[in-house]
């Protein structure tokens, strides 16, 4: 006998796949169930992995002794988010957003400059005089990077010399998009394979031979 879990799993899979034919009540049921359950799942996960260990445990168990009073700040910011529902002081919710966006803007700034621009720029400084084929590939790499950078240049229209360099930039972009698209077909197909092998090997085959 096939366990109930497998039946639910298989039927929901078919409900989602039915959307390919056209929208229908089965898909809509699966979509709604999926929306509700997954939101509930993340609320549970957040409670188990973040709120309880990092905030509630310290508050309940260590209160008074060596309680980390600074934990009040994140808790206060979190509660501030709910001030939006109190008309007169609803603007206070902006404080929590401002702190959150402000901090990650700072983190993003240094991470982009230090973690992305420096290494990527450094690896564009390539030897082009020796190393046979490698030198040629490096020349193509340098042309590609510069032409794409110029294509995205905002301060000038794509005309004249700049226009021609931008055309080369577009060719590199097209090669890249085509290549990346072709590269990811495999990932998508393997997902489909995962679902079909579940349906065939875990649901239908045991049902037939069962």
């Amino acid at each position, binding site marked *: 006998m096939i366990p109930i879990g497998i039946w639910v799993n298989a039927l929901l899979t078919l409900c989602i796949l039915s959307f390919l034919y056209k929208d229908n009540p089965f898909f809509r049921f699966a979509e709604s169930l999926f929306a509700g359950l997954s939101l509930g799942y993340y609320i549970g996960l957040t409670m188990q992995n973040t709120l309880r260990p990092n905030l509630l445990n310290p508050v309940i168990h260590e209160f008074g002794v060596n309680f980390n009073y600074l934990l009040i700040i994140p808790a206060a910011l979190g509660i501030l988010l709910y001030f939006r529902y109190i008309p007169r002081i609803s603007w206070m919710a902006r404080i929590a957003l401002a702190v959150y966006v402000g901090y990650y803007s700072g983190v993003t700034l240094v991470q982009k400059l230090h973690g992305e621009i420096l290494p990527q720029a450094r690896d564009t400084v390539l030897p082009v005089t020796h190393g046979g084929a490698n030198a040629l590939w490096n020349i193509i790499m340098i042309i*590609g990077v510069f032409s794409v950078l110029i294509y995205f240049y905002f301060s000038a229209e794509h005309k004249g010399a700049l226009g021609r360099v931008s055309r080369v930039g577009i060719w590199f972009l097209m090669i890249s998009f*085509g290549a990346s698209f072709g590269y990811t077909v495999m990932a998508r197909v393997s997902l489909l394979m995962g679902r079909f092998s*579940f349906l065939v090997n875990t649901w239908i085959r045991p049902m037939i031979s069962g």
Partner: protein
Amino acid sequence: MKRTVPLVLTFIIGMYPIFAFFVPHRIASDLNDRLDTWLIIVAAFALPLGAVNVFMINLSKISQRRKGWPYSIVILAGLVVMGSIGIAGAYRQDSIGQFQYLFQNIVSPLQSTMFSLLSFYVASAAYRAFRARNLDAGILLVSAIVVMMGRIPFGDMLSHGSMTPLSEWLMTIPNTAAQRGIIIGAALGAASMSIRIILGIERTYLGSGKD
């Protein structure tokens, strides 16, 4: 007052990680690590805010019997059941079992199946988009076909082993060059936007435009 407080906060809190990045001194790094953990807690607080909105929207849909209201019942039922088991799971071991069971047999397959729809969409998008209407579209098409042939053993059999190296070359040289150009450009754009936010020039996310 309503707008200056958030903007001043954004400036101070925004400049802090930059300061902590260049100043390894203990004073700077301790608070920086602390800020990391705090903001994880703030994000965790925000999730129920979303759930509140889901309740309000769906309850009003059910009460007014608007089109598709039965599905709202399914959404709320799923949210309440899984949410309560999940929160209980933080404290009771047995509800963790139910929590995992529901995830394993309902949420996870729905995720994988929804994801697997992409293999159909990739096929229909490829059929429609890869038409050699002009030179650019032609380059896109040829590059895609070469890489697809290089990704499967079949490609090498046809081209007696030259398809995989060619596809790896396309991915390693021109693709990397173009992506590097986009990455550097996007990183500059992101950095410029971060500075605009920290200096308070970019304010739309606060919903505080001109007032």
